[in-house]
């Protein structure tokens, strides 16, 4: 048995092996080790550490005023009336929708499960074509207006970035290679689920696109990514939909936004079989069970175990295990028996 205290002196490779067998305390120790290392390194460098503060999951919207700085001017916070800035109001509304989805669906108390306040920075930089999560808050650019528009206005972008926060606190998947591709995958999964809920669509009405509302007509494509047909969203889209086309290069942290197309397609196929709500629960519980260095095979082992447990508990369709097994096989992923 692995106790909390025992785990702290166990080498990471042993923690990883035990985490793969479902040992939750070893998984937590493995996931936390990176956070502790970073905090220690920061303290050693005598730099200010932004501690996670106790919160109530309240929303705070800051205007960066087109500077490359965060928390420049607070323009709206929880309970405030709308402002004259529609971007601020949109960021407030969408971040609240995402927070409430995780709370109402899975009982998750804000991003970290512990009431972390939901902080958004809008109007970051000048014509800035990006949105990102930095460890405890989100930041959105306005886009250049030529190819991209307001990133804070899109529900799937907001859900994608907030899901990075959820992943950080649940499994802390490291951001490179296959764990990084899984990290991106989970953000696209919850981005697309929450988009469908927000738009009140069912899976046959949904477009399964990510970032379709932030691209302009001049952009050479309809969106940034497609869960339904990875690799087809735009002229630059190089996402594979099968392990046969797995990207092995070094760009993009070894393809975190590229190889995520493979599990994304498996998720889409699974939704067709058992529905998006069962998939949402199975994927969320899988995210909780995964660990920092988990790869695609670990994902498959874990999701099948989770699906089996949820089926026995009567929480998902009886055909979940078969549906997920089949969907992952379709993208070239089958369980490796040791």
């Amino acid at each position, binding site marked *: 048995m692995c106790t909390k205290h025992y785990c702290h002196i166990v080498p990471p490779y042993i923690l990883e092996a035990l985490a793969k067998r479902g040992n939750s305390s070893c998984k937590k120790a493995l996931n936390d080790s990176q956070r502790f290392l970073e905090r220690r390194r920061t303290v050693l460098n005598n730099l200010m550490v932004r501690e996670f503060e106790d919160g109530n999951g309240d929303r705070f919207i800051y205007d960066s005023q087109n500077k*490359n700085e965060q928390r420049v001017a607070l323009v709206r916070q929880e309970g405030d009336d709308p402002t004259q800035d529609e971007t601020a109001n949109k960021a407030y509304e969408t971040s609240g929708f995402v927070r409430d989805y995780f709370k109402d669906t899975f009982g998750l108390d804000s991003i970290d499960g512990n009431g972390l306040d939901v902080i958004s920075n809008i109007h970051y930089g*000048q014509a800035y074509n990006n949105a990102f999560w930095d460890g405890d808050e989100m930041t959105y650019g306005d886009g250049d207006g030529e190819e991209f528009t307001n990133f804070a206005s899109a529900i799937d972008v907001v859900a994608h*970035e907030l899901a990075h926060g959820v992943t*950080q606190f649940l499994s802390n998947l490291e*951001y490179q290679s296959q764990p990084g591709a899984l990290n991106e995958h989970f953000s696209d999964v919850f981005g697309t689920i929450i988009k469908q809920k927000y738009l009140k669509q069912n899976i046959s009405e949904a477009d399964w696109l990510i970032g379709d509302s932030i691209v302009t007509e001049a952009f050479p494509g309809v969106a940034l990514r497609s869960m339904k047909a990875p690799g087809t969203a735009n002229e630059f889209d190089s996402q594979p939909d099968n392990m046969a086309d797995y990207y092995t290069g070094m760009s993009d942290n070894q393809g975190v936004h590229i190889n995520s197309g493979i599990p994304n397609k498996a998720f889409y196929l699974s939704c067709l079989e058992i529905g998006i709500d069962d998939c949402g629960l199975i994927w969320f519980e899988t995210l909780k069970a995964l660990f920092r260095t988990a790869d695609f095979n670990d994902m498959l082992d874990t999701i099948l175990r989770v699906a089996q447990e949820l089926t026995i508990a009567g929480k998902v369709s009886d055909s979940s295990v078969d549906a997920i097994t089949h969907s992952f096989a379709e993208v070239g992923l089958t369980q490796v028996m040791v």
Partner: protein
Amino acid sequence: MKYEILIEGGFTAIPREYEGAIEMQKETKRMLFNLFEKKLPPENQNLRDTLQYHLKLIDGNEEYNACFDETNLPLPIRQFIATVSKKK
């Protein structure tokens, strides 16, 4: 001075490349080179979807390489990137 810039990553995950030559005053070049050699603060391991800025500057026989992320990109280098990206 010649430059090669690759901006990759980010939510869009669409890389941007800029390559060319630019005339700069000696003091401005020296200031940029100094920023390339300056020790960076510790990396934030929790950044997700941030842009990564890979830069190479070549001035005669001297070559300077550096990689920055969103949180440690010095303002003068950000301004330099904005200048050359508008040239394209």
